[in-house]
């Protein structure tokens, strides 16, 4: 009987761990599905909050904080008033630092670092391009080095180039090369899990299409 009880407790323990992890996966999947179907700034913010709560509850998972930061950056770009984006970038950085301390030197995290720098730069481009521009390049380079198969640093670089006037060395011609590399990398990219970062491919197609 004692053995049985012990076995039951152990089983319950295993079950609860599984339940926990199932609950985690379910919550992540639900929110990731919502990411794909959301288009407003406000929804980005509320998704960021959702991910942050999951992160705070789980403590040892880097993905919730990673997504929370990513959603915060997207919110920053979408909310309209660039002059007020500094506190948003600060908040995104705080969230990303939590992901970074759980999962250091991660290529995906480096990509979001570059995005935060872009957000900061746009607040006051003339004064900040030196500092933030260098950070963007450094983080995208780090992302490529940390995981050569990750297509997102190429995609982000390509998008930056596409949004840059040709006179400044940007434009479609310059962007296409990088975006094609991104496309190739997306084709062979396999995310580590159902909830691992796997975004950007459709955006690359869209950008390439615009550059036809």
């Amino acid at each position: 009987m004692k053995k049985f009880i012990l076995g039951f407790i152990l089983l319950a323990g295993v079950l609860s761990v599984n339940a926990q992890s199932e609950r985690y996966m379910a919550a992540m999947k639900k929110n990731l599905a919502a990411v794909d179907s959301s288009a407003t700034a406000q929804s980005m913010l509320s998704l960021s909050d959702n991910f942050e709560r999951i992160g705070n509850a789980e403590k040892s998972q880097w993905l919730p904080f990673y997504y929370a930061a990513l959603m915060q950056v997207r919110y920053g770009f979408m909310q309209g008033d660039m002059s007020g984006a500094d506190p948003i970038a600060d908040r995104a950085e705080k969230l990303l630092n939590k992901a970074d301390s759980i999962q250091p030197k991660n290529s995906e995290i480096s990509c979001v670092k570059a995005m935060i720098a872009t957000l900061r730069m746009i607040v006051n481009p003339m004064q900040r391009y030196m500092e933030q521009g260098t950070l963007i390049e450094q983080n995208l380079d780090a992302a490529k080095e940390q995981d050569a198969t990750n297509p997102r640093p190429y995609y982000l670089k390509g998008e930056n180039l596409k949004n840059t006037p040709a006179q400044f060395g940007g434009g479609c011609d310059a962007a296409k090369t990088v975006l094609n590399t991104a496309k190739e990398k997306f084709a062979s990219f396999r995310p580590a899990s159902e909830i691992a970062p796997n975004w950007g491919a459709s955006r690359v197609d869209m950008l390439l299409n615009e550059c036809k």
Partner: protein
Amino acid sequence: MRRLLFLAIWMIPAGLFAQVNISGKLTDNKNKPLQGASIALVGTYDGATTDSAGNYSFSTSEKGNQQLQATMSGYGTYTKNVSIEGADIRLDISIKELITELNAVVFTAGAFEASDKKKGTALTSLDIVTTASANGDVTGALKTLPGTQQVGESEGLFVRGGTATESKIFMDGNLVNNFFYSSLPGIATRGRFNPFLFKGTVFSAGGYSALYGQALSSALILESTDLPEKTEASLGLSVIGVNGGIQKLAKNKRSSWGLTYGYTNLAPAFAVIRQKQDFFKSPEYHELDANFRIKTKRGGFIKYYGYGSWNKTAFRASDIDSATLQNAFHLQNLNTYQNINWRENFGRRWKMFAGLSFSTNKDDIENELQDADDKKVPVSNPADGYAYKNFQLANRAQYAQLRIVMEKRFKGLNAVRFGAEHFYSNEKSTYTLYDGSQYTAAVKDNITAAFAETDFYITKDIAAKLGVRGEHSELMDKFNVAPRASIAYKFKDNGQLSFAYGIFYQNPERKYLAGSDINLGFAKASHYIVQYQKTADQRTFRSEIFYKKYDALYKTSPNSNGVEVASSNNGNGSAQGLELFWRDKKTLKFMDYWVSYSYLDTKRDYLNFPGKMRPNFAAAHTASLVIKNFVVPIKTGFNATYTFASGRPYYQLKYDNVQQKYLVEDKGNTINYNSVGFSLNYLPNLGKKDSKTFIVWVLSVTNVLGQKQVYGYNYASITDRKEAITPPSRRFVYIGCFLSFGVDRTQDAINNNL
């Protein structure tokens, strides 16, 4: 056991289905709904984000005692214990806005501040080098801001009825004694320092902080840059010189060092652009600077900057007393400046700023009276005033300063700063007359100062800065106590109304102390400033009115050798005026412009003035328009400035031996001053892929329209002639090319424009 198992199975679905709804409304302490705040049951997945009406609502299956938390950046965090039993919960929450740098009122009265962090309006290093009339000179660009005079016959900042010596320049807190190259008669010299050394500038036209002193009018506070972004070498080539340098950033990005050398020779430029003076030795400069910067473990910095310059020039100018004679003026200067400073965080919101600086200056000046064939005219009869035109002057000076400031920050932005500093100055000049007789005057001073200041935020919209400064001068053996205060109030629409008040003291200039044994005190100025400023969305409007009262200004009279020396503190004066400023970076893409206007009404009785009169450096109306436009398709920036100043008064003052004072013998007003400046920056490699060299071509032209400019008049001392003081040439053209080698920054330059 079976019962236990049953119980467990029974409980799971119960837990799943018994959801409780938690909802409510979030407002700030003024009952305004807050959108975008995060509401969470701490440690669970459950929560929501407030909508535009401040409402939130979510369901949870958690049970029992939980913590509900509301967070929003810029606001205090709200936490409340809730007990979830089964019934829905309605909880309205109110959180208080925190006082942060982003939302709080800023002390702006009297000051133009520029740095990236602050939402200031003034000039960054990039603004300075792209201001057409500035010619890459820090103070040149400041002359397009309200409050400054368009004085072209001598260097320095003449602010609100104050002389250039009443404006002091500080680098990382420490005074820079010879910020400008040594004076030449009738020619304004430039500032010595490259604008790119500085990441922040605060130009205060009055009412500045108790942390600074010994300036009756104005303080220009420059903050040097921290670490460079990357390792880089640079090379500059122009028609007037070359310079090269390196900045090396350590691999761990925690320290850097740099070295620059520059050589300038104006001979080629003067060969093409005719100068009024005959430069028989064209201005020639050797300059070396070095720096290191170390980031400390606690996020502080130790920074060193060292500068050394050797330069010489010599020119002939016609003598004012005689049509046939000329003066050959010769100057050699050796200047060094070294500054090491340390700022550190000590935890518990304590900060320290410490600085030590040391500088030396050596001028060797010689003037020779020459005939039309450039031969020395030997005059030895002192009764004949010409004799005194042959002289030599050797100036030697050493300065040192030690300064420590502590800062403790409290809740919100409240802070207390206090500290002390000590200045040492040792200045000696030797005057050699035509007959070889020498007169030496040495003045040594030790000024010790202590100061304290507090920033007190009553709410985020109203704040006061109160300060006091005490100084002791060993030379005069006198104390002063100078209170400073400013109050700032922010309106709902982000407009700001500020007031500033302060008393400012200054020691006499060394040149008026030579041989003077009069018991002197500090000269004194009181400032009263009211300002309205509104900055929104890349546009700034600023207006200021001020009243300034001068007491105890220095009066001079000739001593037994006929040299003007300070004789009393009986001078006085006042200045009042109105200033307007508008800057707009938004309306037109890639275009930035600003307009400034100053009205100044000032009179003073000082030095040898016979009574109160408008000083010769003060124009009543001054206005500037600065336009910068970057044309993307041709990678070129076009910059233009237009500056206007109404005519300035000039006087002939003659000493009357009977009345034993100076009298106005003749006076007048100069013509209005008009100047159009133009400059162009071409960046050919902008956007070139894989380019490792960044190139900037610069072309600048002063006084494009060749308008006649008269700064004032000089009167002959022996005969009755008068002569207009005009620029050395009507127009000056500069062409240069700057290259930097390193990782190409162009890509970054771009994103920024989007």
